[in-house]
């Protein structure tokens, strides 16, 4: 028992304390969170845009199909099909090796790749949410003379958002963990530093279990935040 404890202290010290290595993990975690936030913004903006275009296209009054909307809808469909039909790893390799082959800013390229990937999933979640809102709600909005976009913005999207929050939270947690793939294209995030430390100390156990705990801790914070937000949005349900 004592030998084991000594081993643990030794391994832990080597992995986290010696040479202020904990600072590396913090730096990595910072990059991971940075990628997450940028990817999140890209994902949400793309997702909502695609969802609104696709819903608007499907909800056109018969006989009044706008050709512009038709083209946009077609582009959106290709986007979701390609993104959902290929592994994210392959997409990241294409972003860094083909599209931005000359860029050295792996963090931003990675964030872009993860964000564009997430957008396709967010789009489907949001689209489901928009369709879940009773059609009477948008009819009421339109019958008051509000335009399509105002009706969406003030009436449909807020209600849809409440309905999709659990699914969206799930997607964000997945996205946060998926940022680990960015290490494969050279992004200096959490995994990158854990590997570096492991290579230096010839012991990967402590760094890897260490970052697993860090991911877990962040996910638990995100879950807690999600629960809090859900409770707040339920405000209008109280009787």
């Amino acid at each position, binding site marked *: 028992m004592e030998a084991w404890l000594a081993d643990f202290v030794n391994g832990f010290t080597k992995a986290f304390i010696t040479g202020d290595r904990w600072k590396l993990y913090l730096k990595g975690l910072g990059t991971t969170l940075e990628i997450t936030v940028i990817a999140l913004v890209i994902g949400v903006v793309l997702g909502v845009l695609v969802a609104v275009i696709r819903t608007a296209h499907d909800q056109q*009054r018969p006989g009044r199909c706008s050709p512009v909307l038709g083209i946009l809808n077609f582009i959106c469909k290709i986007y979701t099909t390609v993104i959902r039909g290929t592994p994210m790893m392959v997409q990241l390799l294409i972003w860094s090796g083909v599209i931005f082959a000359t860029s050295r800013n792996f963090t931003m390229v990675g964030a872009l790749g993860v964000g564009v990937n997430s957008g396709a999933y967010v789009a489907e979640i949001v689209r489901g949410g928009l369709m879940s809102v009773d059609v009477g709600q948008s009819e009421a909005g339109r019958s008051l*003379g509000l335009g399509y976009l105002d009706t969406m913005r003030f009436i449909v999207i807020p*209600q849809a958002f*409440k309905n999709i929050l659990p699914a969206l939270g799930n997607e964000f947690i997945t996205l946060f963990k998926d940022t680990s793939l960015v290490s494969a294209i050279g992004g200096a995030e959490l995994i990158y530093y854990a590997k570096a430390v492991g290579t230096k100390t010839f012991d990967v156990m402590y760094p890897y279990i260490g970052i697993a705990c860090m991911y877990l801790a962040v996910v638990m914070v995100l879950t807690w935040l999600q629960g809090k937000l859900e409770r707040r949005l339920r405000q209008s349900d109280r009787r």
Partner: protein
Amino acid sequence: MIDVKHLSKSFGDHLVLDDLSEHISPGEKVVVIGPSGSGKSTFLRCLNLLETPSAGTITFDGMEITAPKADIDAIRRQMGMVFQHFNLFPNMTIRKNITLAPVRTGLMKQEEAEAEAEKLLRRVDLLEKADAYPAQLSGGQKQRIAIVRALAMRPKLMLFDEPTSALDPEMVGEVLEVMKELADEGMTMVVVTHEMGFAREVGTRVLFMDGGHILEQNEPHAFFADPKEPRTKEFLSKVL
């Protein structure tokens, strides 16, 4: 005020409205009755283009609203609509439900709309609910709010789509009361309803629809006392 010419509407192969023409003058209270599936709700919903007519034209105050270039939002601002299932916005307080459209469409400033909302709420005796959410109200209260929400846009015409059909019986009265007051003030109204008492008392004209046609119409007393068509007689014998 509204001129409907040769209006037809079909959903797929199913013809719901069959070459219907009708004229509604300012101040009229037109009550539309008929069996379910007769097309009366579809007729009403065509009047503000919630349903797009398959054929025919509708003219409102000289504007052809079925024209492809018509500004449908601007036209809808002048027509209030009250739905069977209220369709209040559950994510907003009552106050916000009422003020949203007048403010967003530029009809009123925020303070102006708030004052108007309070005036209207006082009128239906629900001022104390201004900051409540729709989920906290009874069905009758919700429908009174829905009427007030439509009135806040100062419409020239009010459309009612079975406004009391989703209500508990003891709440029907309070909603009809508000509609009666509105009628007495001279509002032009088109009401789809199963409330024959209301049709008789408030209506200036009753339309009986069946199978996508207006089979018979008359001033209410004559309509109920002396229906002409056999189909009308049969319907009235069942509901009265």
